[in-house]
């Protein structure tokens, strides 16, 4: 698996197709997150925007490898593992991006609640923001895994499905990502930083199931 992950990571980095989502994410944060704003509120935006970006990264990883090149790798290690390596690479990229963004936003934001009355120490904010960002990265890659090949193979269906899936994952009341983000936003009103471990665990479970389903289907559907 290490060899597959190295190969996929190198493929992603060299293809430079990661640039558009990363630039868009940076631009979104640049507009929505100003330095000196309440930290928890800003971390909520940071986590929420990471979800569609993660789904996009999955699409990049899944479509980045020409089918014949995929076949060479799949013959050696099995199609399921080859696809899983793709998904894990996207997840890794999303997590790295989320962690970096969370740390930067924590450092530049005001360590206080919305009314600037209650002090929110940066380490406490980081402890709240990191699991939320992780939950969004996980759920975003889960959405990407279920809305791209081998589940939906035509671009015309995959792209709208990814967008819709990402939107639902953010606003649907039962979604771990929605729970994590709204926890941060309400925390910003009260000044009490939540620790969204339950949403994180839920997102991890959902993502594991989504990855397993996509990899299982990847071994059964010829491109």
């Amino acid at each position, binding site marked *: 698996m290490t*060899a597959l992950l190295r190969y996929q990571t*190198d493929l992603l980095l*060299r293809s430079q197709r990661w640039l558009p989502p990363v630039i868009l994410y940076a631009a979104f944060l640049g507009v929505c997150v100003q330095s000196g704003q309440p930290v928890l509120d800003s971390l909520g935006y940071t986590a929420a925007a990471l979800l569609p970006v993660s789904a996009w990264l999955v699409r990049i990883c899944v479509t980045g490898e020409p089918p*014949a*090149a995929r*076949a060479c*790798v*799949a013959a*050696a290690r099995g199609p399921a593992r080859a696809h899983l390596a793709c998904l894990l690479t996207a997840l890794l990229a999303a997590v790295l991006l989320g962690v970096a963004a969370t740390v930067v936003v924590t450092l530049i934001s005001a360590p206080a609640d919305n009314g600037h009355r209650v002090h929110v120490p940066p380490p406490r904010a980081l402890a709240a923001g990191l699991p939320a960002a992780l939950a969004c990265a996980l759920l975003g890659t889960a959405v990407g895994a279920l809305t791209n090949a081998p589940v939906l193979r035509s671009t015309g269906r995959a792209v709208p499905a990814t967008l819709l899936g990402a939107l639902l994952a953010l606003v649907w009341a039962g979604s771990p990502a929605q729970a994590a983000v709204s926890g941060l936003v309400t925390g910003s009103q009260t000044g009490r930083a939540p620790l969204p471990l339950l949403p994180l665990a839920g997102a991890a479970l959902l993502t594991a199931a989504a990855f397993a389903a996509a990899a299982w289907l990847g071994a059964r559907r010829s491109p």
Partner: protein
Amino acid sequence: MTLMHRDLRLTAVGRRYGIRGPWVLRGVDLVIAPGTLTRIEGANGTGKSTLLRLLARLDVPSEGRITGRPRTAYVPERFPSALPFTAAGYLTHLGTVHGLGRDAAARAALTWLERFGAGGYAGTPMARLSKGSSQKVAVAQALLGDPELLVLDEAWTGLDAAARAELERAVAERTAAGGAVVFVDHDPRRLAGVPDATYTVTGGGLLRRTDSGGGTADGPVTVVLAEGPAGAPLPPEAVRTARSTRETAPGRHRLTVPASHSDVLLRALLTARPPWHVARVEPGTADAPHSDPESRP
């Protein structure tokens, strides 16, 4: 080197795309044993590539069963050059995917590129490779890891003459080392007379050809004159590789071998204990096999 422990076995295998799609293949029974060379023939669109994809375990059958999981390498019909690596960089990655360490993979990458006459392209980005050079990379990635099963889907197409011959020799080495090779090629003279079995895909089924796979006397041959201890039998590996053998004088043997397998035969003779002396190697005209009482059946 670990070799394939079990046969790859297809039992009543069928494949169709979609729940109600027409059957591309049906009722296919096939055994791929270690150390054998198998040729698959058939007209365009009969399901040859589907069969190869099933053998490489890239696809699962809609019905029936496939057992055995040798370490497999696959050469696709058309290999894309749209990968953001250099030739050597890509091959090093694929070497590690095939189970080599990073250093061993980098060394093997250069060795195989040189064998196919593409050593000068090691540092060239794949996007700038010609179609032929990119096919050499496709073939090299499959041979890097000494696979137990090598599946070649028209792998010779696009290669220059020297590389085509080199790939035939590489196939001979693989089977001599105990690996299985399955191939499809549009040229009927490809490895003519060498396959242990030839199958024709027709009407979704598989027929075994009984006329010894395209005529034994078809392909180019090499004649080897070897001398050994008087009265000593030829090394078994040499007998297995040679198409025909004849003792011209006590201890002197004339061996006829498919040109692709001459290296394998020489290696068998020179590494035998005690080693045999190779007196002469020359391109030959094929003996008519039936006139030779010792010819391989």
